[in-house]
């Protein structure tokens, strides 16, 4: 674990489509690969609610969950 890691303002999870697997990989946060756009929305919303975080969209169907 990183020395100054804090739960806030760090990436808690990455949700992306399967075809982005070569762009998004590794790292400290769990990565969720989904089939379609609808699932992408649904899953990112759910994780954000559960972690009390917020969804950010990085473009190219990559969404991250960050708690501020």
């Amino acid at each position, binding site marked *: 674990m990183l020395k100054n890691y804090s739960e806030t303002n760090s990436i808690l999870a990455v949700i992306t489509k399967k075809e982005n697997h070569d762009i998004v990989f590794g790292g400290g946060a769990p990565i969720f690969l989904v089939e379609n756009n609808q699932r992408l*929305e649904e899953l*990112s*919303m759910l994780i*954000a*609610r559960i972690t*009390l*975080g*917020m*969804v*950010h*969209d*990085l*473009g190219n169907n990559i*969404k*991250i969950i960050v*708690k*501020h």
Partner: protein
Amino acid sequence: MYKYGEMFIVSFFSGFIARALMLRIDYRQFPSFPQSYLIHLSMGFIASVLGSLALPVLLEEEFIAITFITIGAQHFREIRSLERDSMEKLEETELINKGSAYIEGIAKLFEARNYMALFTSLGTSIFYYFTNLEISIISAIIIGYMLHIMMKGPHISDIADVEITALTIRGYNIGVDDVIIMNVGEKAAWEKWKSEGIGIKIIPKDENARATLANLGQRQAIIHDLAILMGVKLDKGMEQFTPLARLELDYGILNIIIIPQEPDNEFIKEAIKKIPVLESSQKKPLKSIMGKKAAD
């Protein structure tokens, strides 16, 4: 009757009434009614007793009694930390924090108001001693009013202009004008921002105002008060709807994005203008020669 009975009663009541008149309940609901109210009234009571006793004990040449006033001052200082502690504890129960600068400002105000009661009483007793009852009552009103005016800080309307604009929406990024403030990745939240969100521009009038608005505590206070006055569609776990304030760096314009419950532009504008400028956030670079020259 006690030799200085009438003097004491007049000066005590002038101090106490001055304190009581300052205890107003407004939209902030602070101090809360009735418990906090009673606490502050009784502190005001002690302050005005101290103030009105100062002159009689001096006249009686009981100089040792003056030390009681210092004990009183010590006591009033505790009020500040008491208020601060209680507000800091309540901070976690707020959806939008007051911020430490606002808390400190309120706490300081409550301490200062006790001194105000003390000085009103003291001043009245001095006037009573040298003149008569009528003049001392009039002077009590004047002293109380002057101290009240002196303690009144500026409002946002004194340092800045307010404009309401539509949000700038570029893809998933939202902001005001060219300042991107938030990236909302959730479709439903993004649509809500698009349909109900508004942007607010607070444009500083001069360099002093610019430095003041840049203060993080001042920004937090503006958002907090605005959320109370106009309501905000927000809940725990709904971080995507948090109102945010960010600076436009070139002109120091403070941009706020918010989803108000009452989307009435005219009143939102009025509400912001009434928000106090915090004592601790006020900066006056124009008062220095360097600041003045550099601003030209």
